[in-house]
């Protein structure tokens, strides 16, 4: 059981805090001979697998390293482009490392502001009267729990599907927000939360949750 990450959204839908708790590394390294039997494309300055998924390398994974040397976007460490390098037979055999890309800060902000309209439409399309927005969103690999306060701030927790007690945890994060962010005289509403106390207490809370102290 694990909590993957926590997002806090302001009432206008912007991301004001994000914390990654447990991250899972999905990386596969494999030796390839010429010609490459997977199709790679360049997307947003990354080399992405487009076709030919096999041996744990899935479509959507990024090329991370060649022969153990990390890539810098689409460039090798000496500044050469990757695509011509991979097209040259004399460079093979190569050991390529692929992995599921981590979310960049920009993507996190983008995703957080994407949740806001989904939340609103879910309540608009409701077949029952006076429905709230999305409270739990389930996928096969994770569950997203959302708690909206009366003032419109949303707390999101992304957790494993089997994780228990997330509702309680959401309330506790809200308490921490009220205690350490709102009561901080230097914190202004709607702005990103940069409070050491808040951060350290949140980490403590998540550690306790992990070791099961809160699961009474």
């Amino acid at each position, binding site marked *: 059981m694990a909590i*993957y*990450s926590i997002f806090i959204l302001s009432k206008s839908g912007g991301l004001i805090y994000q914390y990654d708790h*447990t*991250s*899972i590394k*999905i990386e596969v390294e494999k030796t390839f001979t010429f010609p490459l039997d997977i199709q790679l494309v360049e997307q947003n300055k990354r080399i992405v697998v487009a076709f030919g998924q096999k041996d744990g390398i*899935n479509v*959507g994974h990024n090329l991370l390293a060649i022969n153990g040397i990390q890539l810098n976007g689409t460039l090798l460490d000496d500044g050469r482009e990757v695509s011509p390098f991979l097209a040259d037979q004399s460079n093979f055999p190569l050991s390529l490392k692929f992995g*599921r890309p981590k*979310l960049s800060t920009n*993507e996190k902000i983008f*995703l957080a502001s*994407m*949740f806001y*309209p*989904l939340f609103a*439409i*879910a*309540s*608009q*399309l*409701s*077949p*029952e*009267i*006076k*429905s*709230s*927005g*999305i*409270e*739990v*969103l*389930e*996928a*096969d*690999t*994770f569950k*997203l729990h959302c708690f909206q306060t009366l003032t419109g701030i949303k707390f999101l927790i*992304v957790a494993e599907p089997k994780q228990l007690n997330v509702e309680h945890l959401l309330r506790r994060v809200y308490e921490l927000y009220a205690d350490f962010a709102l009561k901080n005289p230097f914190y202004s509403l709607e702005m990103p939360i940069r409070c050491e106390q808040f951060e350290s207490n949140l980490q403590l809370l998540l550690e306790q949750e992990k070791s099961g102290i809160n699961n009474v």
Partner: protein
Amino acid sequence: MTIHNLYMFDRHGVLMYYGEWNRKRQSGMTIEEEAKLMYGMLYSIKNFVNKMSPVDVREGFQCYRTSKYALNYFETPSGVKFVMNTDLHSQGVRELLQQINSQIYIEYCVKNPAYKSGETIQCELFKTKLDELVKQSPIFKS
């Protein structure tokens, strides 16, 4: 437990069928507009889930719950999407949607020579059989 309504979309996002059973509130738009809004939301949710997931997704989005209803989503490999709104206590809605696909949609639409894919479903037999299946299901009854 109850079933509110069912939307069926083809792989291009066209509303193929809409069925309603115990719907207590209308959204105040025409059904075409509502279907567009629904499809748009599902499309975004699918993208959202793919990005948000910490590991590679297989089936992806399955359902969401609000304080009053649950939306259950099932997509076939050919891209036909079934969306059923039920109350919060309903169990096994996914299985019901799979049944609707294999026993009703495949049998009475796909195998019907007069039916062209991508059109609204007009077939009477489909409608009566769907209504029967939904009304017989334990989710609808109790």
